[in-house]
């Protein structure tokens, strides 16, 4: 069946099976930044933004994105123009193995879109669906708070 949606701001039409999961559809089409970690919606490695909200794409059937807007990590920044969050994650040492990082950045993006000035508590709550075994979260939280500050500055100027 055909599904029409917006993928990283581009109108997209894909032929998908009714039982296909969004994570598999995206990965099969080369969007490899969406990772598989558990397949049961518990780890957050496959998080994408669906109409701006972070969802585990392993729990989303592909036909469900009809008419919606999907953002994957590939739609967030480019190597020549990284997003502030991507820069701050790198600078803070928040990227170790990097397998959970795309999901973390997308969850952070959703947080900062609705709350540009989050407290440490807000960050901890927003990221609690993104498991990371490498960093201990310390530098992840630092990165998100400094990215938030930089994004606010940019907006003001």
């Amino acid at each position, binding site marked *: 069946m055909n599904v029409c949606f917006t993928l990283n701001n581009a109108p997209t039409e894909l032929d998908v099976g009714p039982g296909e999961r969004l994570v598999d559809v995206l990965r099969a089409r080369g969007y*490899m*930044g969406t990772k598989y970690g558990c397949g049961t919606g518990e780890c957050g490695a496959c998080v994408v933004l669906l109409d701006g909200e972070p969802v585990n794409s392993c729990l989303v059937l592909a036909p469900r994105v009809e008419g919606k807007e999907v953002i994957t*990590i590939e739609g967030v920044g480019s*190597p020549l123009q990284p997003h502030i969050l991507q820069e701050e994650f790198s600078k803070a040492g928040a990227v170790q*193995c990097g397998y959970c*990082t*795309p999901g973390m950045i997308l969850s952070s993006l959703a947080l900062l879109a609705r709350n540009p000035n989050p407290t440490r508590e807000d960050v*901890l709550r927003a990221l609690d669906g993104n498991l990371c075994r490498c960093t*201990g*979260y310390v530098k992840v939280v630092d990165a998100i708070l400094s990215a938030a500050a930089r994004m606010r500055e940019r907006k003001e100027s």
Partner: protein
Amino acid sequence: MKTHDTKVVGHSVLKIDALGLAMGRASFTDDFTLPDMLHARLLTSSLAHARIKAIDANDALSLPGVAYILTPENSPRVFHTTAGQGFPEPSPYDSVMFDWKVRHVGDKVAAVAAVTEDIAEEALRRIRVEYEPLEAVFDVERALAPGAPVIHDEAEARAVIPVTYEPKRNLAAEVSFSVGPVDELWERSELRFNGEYGVHRASHCAIEPHIAIAYLDADARLIIRSATQVPFHARRIVAQVLGIPAGRIRVIKPRLGGAFGGKQEVILEQIAGLLCLRTGKPVRLRMTREEVFLTSRTRHGQRLRLRSTVNQEGRVTMLDLSTVLDTGGYGSHGLTVATNTGSKVLPLVNRTEAVRFSAKTAYTNLPVAGAYRGYGATQGSFALNVQMDEMARALGMDVLDFWKRNHIRQGESSPVFQALGEGTEGVPMTIQSCGLEACLEQGACAIGWAQKHGKNQKGRFARGVGMAALMQGSSIPRIDMAAASIKLNDDGSVNLLVGATDLGTGSDTVLAQIAAEVLGIPIDKVIVYSSDTDLTPFDTGAYASSTTYLSGEAVRRAAEDLGRGVRRVAGKMIGEDPATLVLEDGNVKSPRSETSLGDVALRTLYQEEQEQLMGTASAYSEQSPPPFSAHFVEVEVDRLTGRIAIIEYVAAVDCGVAINPVLAEGQTEGAVINGIGYALFEEYLMDSNGKMRNPNFIAYRIPTTRDFPNITTILVPTYEPSGPYGAKSISEISINGPLPAISNAVFDAVGIRLRHAPFTSDRVWSALRSI
């Protein structure tokens, strides 16, 4: 103490792959597809102990899209170990690809390759296996008792180095040593302690599941992309199991999504490789999360007994540690984790007159244990640090002062170093750098030890502080080896080729920093390529806290080697004695004149006396200098619910010179959180048939941001003369701290002594009720 004025080393340069990873661009094993690639799945056992009487795959094979099915019938019966260690391995050869017997729930029975993962999964359901159930054994004591069911009754199971291995008794390994009058001191001491400590099985939970993709190149060589810590061992083991020369195999480790010891095991590579050879098509084999829990590896659960004596002055005079390890259905790392339980723990207390260690590793019909960050030191440190706290309290001393009276110091040796090796005798070693005293002082100061310790609070919520002193090692002496090569390009950049394996730790960055430092170039002039058995020099792999120390030393030497060539050519170019030239800012300088590395390269590549300037070197160590650490934690115990909350955590670590402080902090923070999860809630819940009840992240909870404590890492600088730029290891040590530090803090808060982990609310609640 910084004896080198360094420009790149010791600075927190950006991790070289961080931005690419944050873009989702960098390539993990599974981010790579090939035309006509088949997808494989494993059939695993639902029984803990059974013989396979018959296996019928015909129905599965007739399913459209199924390409091949491997079973015990058509797979090689080559006995090997999956442990991924040096050769010959200290782990027993007790595994075949698919055996006629299953030894734990989750044991491999067959593998299907099909055009899609869904078809492969459907095929699994159509394979009919006729089992003859056997009596199973789930307890180490019972497994070692006479009359227990024999888990490895096959004639072929054997040790390949001269060590104790008695599979007929379910004894997978045994090690012991004794120095001094242990029993005499025990008999005549007035102050003596005897405790039993239980430490449990746990999963590594790297977020990337285990995966391998195998394909044939144009010359029909077998190429395996794998999420492995040990590409060179993987090549050797695949060659062994498949019976083909290692030279016909290439193992490539791309970016890796976390490992922690779990990906030292070579489990999938040989299966994907064989399916590829049988079908001629690329084959992808990825574990499900449930398979990672059941079919990959775990930490060794241990039952430890520690006896000790102490004199009135507060000096520990005797330590006697004995332990039994549960290795599950196969003996992977069973000997060496046992050994490390003593060798990475007992030397910490170094004023004793006698020390004894004995360990037995038992087969059981439970999930298979293997390497896990900490590797025995996690288990042994728990027993030692809790008993040190017990001793100090009995003496009426502050445990901090007690540790200061007893711990090992720079310039000292320990009989344990010489006694305990890897299936052999150990290697004598004198400690050349030890910042433990500073770790104890700075950590205590940071947590406010003096104000918070021994407060004995009343009321529902009680706070307390606890601490632990720790050590680990840096590489396996006289066994590990690492190599590097480096070549100079037109523009003064260099290609650094290392066999070393970056697991996400940042070792590619650390190694690039070392090369940049030696050659006097910025880090962005170092192009790192690592972990490819065709293209990079050998390295035993990323384990035993070896990469910075040993692979780093290989890189330092290789860069020095290239530097000598650069000076030789530059000396001719500017008419100076090469020995007087300095490499700095991309240039080769004398006090009078200079040329650039780029100009040196242009001359040698295109103009005069043409040659490729390159360096190559290996590193091998006669010693394993321990990093040291002191951990401090403040907890709050809820007397009503038994819940332990971590209020604050301080880890002070001596890793020698931290090549990259931010990455070193990251190693510490990650290890501490992993250790906190292990101490408080991570646990395999087994049913009475040996099946894990919680093989998912909902029921086997690992720490999330909700569990985020306030962690402070203090890097206490020392200088290790045998390490590159003074570095020792840091990756493992800090996972050993939370278990004992939290147990001691809980005692400080509410007076209960937690000797069996994990410290779940119900256990704490029960303990509170029994005092």
